């Protein structure tokens, strides 16, 4: 399945995310999930980024919290806007979930 996941919390303590599997997996960091893209956790990049997936970050939620694309901790994270997210949901994935 082509699965999209929206992460909106800066703290992920349960293990569902780590265990999710899909042929194609995309992770969208939105809301407070954007912190995984721009700040470190104990000096290291967030473990959320360890997942084998395409990573996106919602630009407006990043900017709302005081960050820009220049702050991304990993070049694999692509900044997107809400219009692009609509395509990810409606066209490019079978299912999209809000974790």
């Amino acid at each position, binding site marked *: 399945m082509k699965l999209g996941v*929206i992460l*909106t*919390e800066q703290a992920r303590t349960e293990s569902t995310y780590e265990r999710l599997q899909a042929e194609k997996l995309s992770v969208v960091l*939105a*809301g407070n999930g954007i912190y995984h893209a721009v700040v470190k956790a104990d000096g290291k990049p967030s473990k959320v980024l360890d997942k084998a997936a395409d990573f996106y970050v919602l630009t407006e939620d990043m900017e709302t919290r005081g960050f820009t694309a220049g702050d991304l901790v990993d070049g694999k994270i692509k900044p997107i806007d*809400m*219009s692009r*997210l*609509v*395509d990810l*949901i*409606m066209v490019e994935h079978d*299912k*999209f*979930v*809000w974790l």
Partner: protein
Amino acid sequence: MATLTIGCFSSLVGSMSLDFAVKLAKAAKEKGHDVNMWVSGNGTMLSKKGQRAFKDYSYLAKTVEALIADGVQVTACEACAESRGFHKEDTMENFKRHSMDWYLAKCVVSDKVLHIGGE
């Protein structure tokens, strides 16, 4: 073009999740998709009429009114609303109220569903 149904349980003002849901509905509508929106739990706060705009608080009422005028079906869970003291007369104009089966039925006729749980 396709149909998207968005469900949201999150409270007004507090979590920004309802802000996200409304923004996503608007963006999907602007791209030509049909959009349904279901609010349940604390999400039913979105249906309360008379929300006042202050710059310290999220203010979604105006955007929701525009979405409804634009053909988006926006519906609140009736029992969740009533338990909170939101009755028919407390509800924003053209904001519908149904029982939870409405949401499931909309899912059946939708190409995609995004369910936003959590606070």
